């Protein structure tokens, strides 16, 4: 060992010889892949989110069984790779319902909730922020207080009150989550708008006779768009989790409609005897939320022109 080190030439020769000998082609291709544009795209998160969207839209058509079909004769069958049969690829629950079909149906609930919450809460938040940030004065003061008040109101209490007042349904879940979600957008976007409004390019735009509407569409909205996008993507994850939590607590999507949260709640008791009941919805939740967060992160980097390459 020490002899080799003493002779740098032979050490170098050994090194250079080793490179093509031991999988040089692999190393080369890896470098190429890294350099190519492909890896700049978050394949994992976009792939998962794409699958989630597909499952959310077409899941019910692709499901091998009716997700709500009860058949006690086949209750608690294990997944195919764990000694079960391919009739129920991911096994069945305590009522003999196909887990895969229920996961797909649950994806639909999550997808519908996530999308409507993100779009509605985002629009309301954006509208409030624009009104407060551009009008200023008393409008701003009132809207900011309302926003702060809404953020301070406990989300679960709001959900319980709403469910107690109205009947639990998918729509109600969306309403609750929108009510809880918009203030986040409003608060962050308003701060952003106030910052942009004092930038010199806005003053210059005013000297170019830009009216409020022009400044809003040309400068303010484009400049807060990246923040809005990032917030929205993160909100996808939050909304999925929130829907899961509500359904887990039994105040979300009403049974027997499948939802990842309610599947988790029902399967909780079988953790030691039939692990597939809680495991699969849990994995679905985790992976989807992780993917949404990673995608949000990537979007943030991407939408900043100083980071763009």
């Amino acid at each position: 060992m020490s002899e080799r080190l003493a002779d740098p030439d032979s050490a170098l020769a050994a090194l250079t010889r080793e490179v093509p000998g031991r999988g040089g082609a692999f190393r080369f291709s890896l470098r190429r892949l890294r350099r190519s544009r492909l890896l700049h795209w978050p394949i994992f998160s976009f792939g998962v989110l794409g699958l989630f969207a597909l499952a959310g839209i077409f899941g019910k058509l692709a499901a091998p069984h009716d997700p709500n079909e009860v058949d006690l004769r086949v209750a608690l069958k294990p997944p195919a790779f764990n000694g079960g049969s391919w009739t129920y690829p991911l096994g069945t629950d305590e009522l003999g319902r196909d887990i895969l079909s229920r996961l797909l149906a649950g994806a639909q609930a999550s997808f519908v909730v996530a999308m409507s919450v993100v779009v509605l809460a985002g629009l309301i938040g954006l509208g409030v922020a624009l009104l407060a940030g551009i009008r200023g004065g008393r409008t701003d003061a009132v809207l900011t207080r309302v926003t702060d008040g809404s953020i301070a109101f406990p989300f679960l209490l709001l959900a319980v009150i709403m469910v107690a007042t109205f009947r639990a349904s998918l729509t109600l879940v969306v309403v609750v989550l929108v009510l809880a979600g918009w203030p986040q957008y409003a608060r962050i976007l308003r701060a952003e708008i106030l910052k942009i409004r004092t930038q010199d390019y806005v003053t210059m735009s005013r000297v170019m006779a830009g009216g409020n509407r022009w400044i809003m569409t040309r400068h303010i909205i484009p400049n807060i768009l990246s923040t809005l996008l990032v917030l929205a993507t993160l909100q996808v994850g939050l909304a999925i989790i929130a829907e899961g939590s509500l359904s887990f607590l039994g105040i979300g999507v009403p049974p027997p409609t499948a939802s990842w949260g309610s599947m988790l709640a029902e399967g909780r008791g079988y953790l030691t005897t039939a692990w597939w009941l809680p495991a699969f919805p849990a994995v679905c939740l985790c992976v989807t939320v992780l993917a949404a967060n990673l995608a949000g992160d990537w979007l943030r980097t991407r939408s900043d022109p100083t980071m763009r390459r």
Partner: protein
Amino acid sequence: MLDIKDLEVEYTHGGIATPAVRRATLHLSKGAALALIGESGSGKSTLALAVMRLIRPPAGRIVEGEIFLDNVSVTAARHKQMRSILRHRIGFIPQDPTTSLDPLFTIGSQVAEVLPRMPRGKRNGEIGTLLETLGVRAATARLRSYPHEFSGGMRQRVAMAIALAKEPDLLIADEPTTALDVTTQISLLRLLDKLRVDRQLTTLFITHDLRVARLLCQDVAVMYAGLIVESGPMRQVLKAPSHPYTKALLELSESEKIPSSRLTVIPGHAPSPLDRPRGCPFAPRCSRAEEICRTTLPEVQTRDDGVRYQCWNPVTA
């Protein structure tokens, strides 16, 4: 060209009105450059914003007085008329090159915004030429660059291009070189001076640096606590200032020339806009102050050589 008469501007915050500019009277003739000098918070930027009528409720308002641009009243102009004035007649160069350009749009598109509609090729040519005259090298090739790819000095040149592209009659420059290093400052100031002569550009130059003002301007107006304490031709004011504050400023810039001398300062500090003395705002710091200075705001006096000052006990009358 630009006439400001008895202008009063105030800011409102939380229902409390704070006077920012008081009884300001100024005159700028065509093709002349006037330096508006004062410390931070003396109201010089506010005055400039008021000329562009960018002080609007709820942030603040023009309480009194009139501003004329070639005998057109800016203060009385209707909304549409004001937009046309802003669009065609006033160019504005802001102070901070880091925020003067929208980070999301290319240099070319931001300058193009000011120009009238024309074919793209012609427009890009025009923008390129304009930027070249402002000292941006290889400008045509860099029109598609984003602001963050430019240095501070270059960005300020682009901001100047935006201000100048509409060929304004009045250029308002709010400390355009303060954020830049000294060599860049000098070259930009030379450029502004050349442009002023070439285009007969009336310039309102806001600065707190007397040396910069001397280099560029024929007229000067000194502001203190919202008041124009002295104004007139630069040479006369520098030779024999009337107001003790102007004199103190001049002495400061003289003492800067001696290396490693003690830093001289005017004792005390500028009064807060919320708590201004009843009389002359400079009285608490003034060595020549008399009883009347503390109780009554001095009238505007005019000297034979055209210098106007507001002081009860002037250095030169």
